[in-house]
């Protein structure tokens, strides 16, 4: 089975990193032992929309994860759509299926889409809880993992820590956990609401 994920936001938020870490985790580490005792591998490809230089504007990063060999590696319509800015919302909200799970940061996205929507205040939470909005993307990634359960927390964490400077490892670990927490709260709230 394939999972198709799209992360979007504005330049500088680290949206691309989210996709890289997810795909890396799936491709390198998220291997389970199958029924026949053999290692079952996933294949994962990350692609991105690549604008000129680092000049704000919207930014998009796609990840496709497959249990079998990857044939077509691009996301056609995402199963998961993570949106971290109003601009990105406007641009990417159309490309979804009825059952696409949508995860937004409600402090940065002003519109409120209909459907299977999760509100994760990653930016505010990052600033308030771990002290810097720089890791808002990691918070969101943690939340995404909790909601999607596409990869294990361990492999995601391992891929994450390989991709960020050593001195920030603790910070990033906390951010990932914080995301998971926000997600369970959101899920709970939804199931209640």
């Amino acid at each position, binding site marked *: 089975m394939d999972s198709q994920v799209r992360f979007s936001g504005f330049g500088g938020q680290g949206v691309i990193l989210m996709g890289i870490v997810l795909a890396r985790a799936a491709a390198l580490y998220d291997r389970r032992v199958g029924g026949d005792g053999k290692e079952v591998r996933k294949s994962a490809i990350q692609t991105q929309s690549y604008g*000129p*230089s*680092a*000049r*704000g504007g919207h930014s998009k990063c796609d990840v496709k994860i497959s249990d079998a060999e990857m044939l077509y590696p691009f996301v056609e319509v995402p199963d998961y759509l993570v949106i971290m800015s109003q601009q990105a919302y406007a641009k990417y909200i159309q490309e979804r299926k009825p059952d696409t799970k949508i995860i937004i940061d409600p402090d940065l996205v002003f519109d409120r889409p209909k459907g299977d929507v999760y509100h994760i205040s990653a930016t505010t939470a990052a600033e308030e809880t771990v002290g810097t909005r720089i890791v808002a993307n990691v918070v969101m990634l943690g939340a995404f993992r909790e909601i999607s359960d596409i990869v294990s927390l361990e492999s995601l964490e391992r891929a994450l820590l390989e991709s960020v400077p050593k001195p920030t490892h603790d910070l990033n670990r906390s951010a990932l956990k914080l995301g998971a927490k926000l997600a369970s709260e959101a899920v709970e709230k939804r199931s209640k609401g």
Partner: protein
Amino acid sequence: MEIFDFYRKDRWPHVFCPGCGNGAVMNCFYRAFNELGLELDKTAFVGGIGCSSRIPLYINSDALHTTHGRAIAFATGLKLAKPELKVVVFTGDGDLGAIGGNHFINGCRRNVDMTVICINNNIYGMTGGQASITTPHEFLSTTTPRGNKEYPFDLAEIAVAAGANYVARWTTRHVHELTKSIKAALQKKGFTFVEVVAQCPTNFGRRNRMADPTQMLEWMRESSIRRDKAKANAVDHVDLNLEGKITVGEFVDRNRECYEELIGVSKHG
């Protein structure tokens, strides 16, 4: 003419990063152009490819956004085909001095009447921060991860040696001097060249401990030295490059006949 008569306001905010030096050069250019009472419809702007080279597209006039490095060659044809036009080229250190180096020196030599403004941000901004021919010795870039081992060009000195009629260099920390030199360049016949050392916080500053644009302005202030002083101390320009200084000032101001006068080109409207 207000600034947004000169620039295409409907394209604002422009594409340049926060703190990018291009904007200051645009301000000074508009100021000089306006104070001289020049007319947009009698002026054409030409750019190569690069962040700096995109400025012509923001000006409310005819704009020729060309290929990488060839702006001066395109401008030469345009000017000689329509000599009544004032022609201004916006270019970058990479566009003018790397891939376009030959057209640059031959432009100076041929002395076709045009003003060339080179925004030297010491880096390839548009492509994400590779070293350019003006990246100072030992500075970092994506293609010089161990520090730049080459020594930079002194574009203004080369323009002098190649024969340009007017040559000046300033930094974006010298907005008034810059405005004055742009005016001088626009008023003089023949090939005139103004180099502006400008900040690229995104791709030059960030890798060289000057991520904040104001740090870059401060660096320029500290490194600048007037050319007359530098000359008095008898350091040749290559040595100056070795020291990482930025010589600023007017480098030459002479009156060689321009090419159009020499060939007697007539204005065919």
